[in-house]
């Protein structure tokens, strides 16, 4: 319990330190930043436009988002957008994790599948998101069965899944193949088949590899959602909001930071949710000690 409290305090201290560093630089840093040669800026400008005070950023959160009558505060607007993006990222995470696990199972089961699929899986992550986002949107627009029509947010979730499946497939593959030969042979002597071996041995053994992969996948899903919202032009989410608020940065520099805080919060919540999963799977986290 003391350890938990300590961790929370240290975390809060870290945030305060970053804020203090920001304002110290703003107070003492050169107005025009530090230039090397004519053009290369190595330290940022300390103007109000480039670096608003941290307290202004926080203050701005609780002022109305727009000049319209009855507009919600920036905080409320960001909260709503964050929820929207988080929901999409969660869907993308679920799809990505499912696909990643299935791919890992397939590659564990068939050697041929591993040699055939693994290069493509790695290659898939080298394709720039901005290139595939419009493609996904265009292809999606042609999908229609029954009452279901493909919406832009499905495209965003798909792109989130596209990023999220990668760490899961790689991590799960390593985990599923981690049992020692002794263990695998023991299962063989028990006369149990591949599926029983999977459930009794391979899946539990994969947990220590899977947990960091799931966490990475959560972070990837959030990044994927935010970036894809921008590329696809989906309204309502935090990604689009970052762009919109940045446009008003000229007159209202603190406002641009509100959705950035939102994006950070979404990432933290996503990582935290996976952390809960970690707690549930704790019994399987015991590392390989009996050798």
């Amino acid at each position: 319990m003391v350890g938990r409290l300590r961790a929370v305090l240290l975390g809060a201290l870290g945030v305060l330190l970053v804020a203090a560093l920001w304002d110290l630089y703003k107070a003492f840093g050169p107005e025009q930043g530090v230039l090397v040669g004519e053009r290369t800026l190595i330290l940022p400008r300390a103007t109000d436009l480039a670096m608003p005070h941290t307290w202004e950023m926080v203050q701005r959160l609780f002022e109305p988002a727009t000049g319209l009558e009855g507009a919600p505060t920036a905080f409320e607007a960001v909260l709503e957008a964050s929820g929207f993006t988080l929901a999409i990222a969660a869907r993308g995470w679920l799809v990505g994790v499912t696909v990643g696990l299935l791919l890992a199972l397939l590659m564990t089961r068939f050697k041929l599948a591993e040699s055939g699929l693994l290069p493509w899986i790695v290659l898939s992550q080298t394709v720039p998101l901005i290139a595939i986002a419009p493609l996904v949107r265009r292809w999606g627009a042609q999908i229609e069965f029954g009452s279901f029509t493909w919406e832009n947010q499905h495209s965003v979730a798909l792109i989130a899944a596209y990023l999220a499946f990668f760490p899961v497939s790689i991590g799960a593959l390593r985990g599923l193949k981690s049992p020692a030969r002794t263990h695998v042979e023991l299962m063989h002597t028990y006369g149990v088949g591949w599926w029983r071996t999977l459930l009794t041995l391979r899946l539990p053994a994969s947990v220590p590899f899977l947990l960091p992969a799931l966490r990475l996948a959560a972070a990837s899903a959030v990044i994927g959602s935010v970036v894809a919202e921008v590329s696809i032009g989906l309204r309502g989410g935090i990604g689009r909001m970052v762009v919109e608020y940045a446009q008003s940065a000229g007159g209202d520099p603190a406002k641009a930071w509100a959705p950035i805080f939102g994006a950070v919060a979404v990432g933290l919540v996503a990582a935290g949710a996976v952390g809960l999963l970690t707690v549930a799977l704790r019994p399987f986290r015991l590392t390989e000690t009996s050798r």
Partner: protein
Amino acid sequence: MTPTDTEPDTAPEQRAPQAAAIEVVGVDRVFRRRRDEVVALSDVSVSVAAGEFVSLIGPSGCGKSTLLRLVADLDSPTAGAISVFGKTTRQARRDQDYGIAFQQAGLLPWRTVASNIELPLKLHGVGAGERRARSAELLELVGLQDFGRHHPDQLSGGMQQRVAIARALAESPRLLLMDEPFGALDEITRERMQNELVRICRETSAAVLFVTHSIPEAVFLSDRVVVMSPRPGRIVDVVTAGGAGMGTSHDRTDEVRDAAEFFHTVAAVREHLHGAPVDGTRGVENR
């Protein structure tokens, strides 16, 4: 070719006649890797009677582990035949006729000691109540009754190995296959484990095929010691351990380690291992 052992009755006691626990006849095992051919076993024949303790000993590469893996149906012979209680090795494996223990304990780290022991029972559909009773019984047999709820990482190497032996005994097999189970243990723990194994074999009257590279260990535990040599792996000779001061494999106590007969047998095994008579002045060192 070296003589092989098929003596019909080398079992230490007068046991009721029944199918031999293991019958290996003319087995070859050749590993082919690309163009290389490695003859791991060449024309090996050996039998283990029910309740008998037989050790395989030899330098590394003599195929002793390969032979055990063939009996366990973890590998198939290139030529020859192996039967376990009169069945094919595959059938014997499916019928759970043997329990097996390796050099590594191979316990599942996320399962408690008790549920590691219960694993084979669980996989074969034994009910929870019966499983618990059996694991309690086995924990007592290997002297770990207070450790059922511990996880393997909380146990020492010797204790883990005892759990592995308990697991191998879970389904009351009539045959135990052991591949250097004490190989990773220190000498003191090792001798204690040997004493325990003698007791366990006496109480369960299971036959044992035991792979080791320690001469005193083989002699202390066995009714017969099968001496093997490498390239190609084959049986050099079979040394019978027993007689005055040693008794059968079930009678061994710490006194046996000091018996004259024990030293003679150790010397005999060593002689076969080195392929030539060892001169008498060399004495017998304990390992």
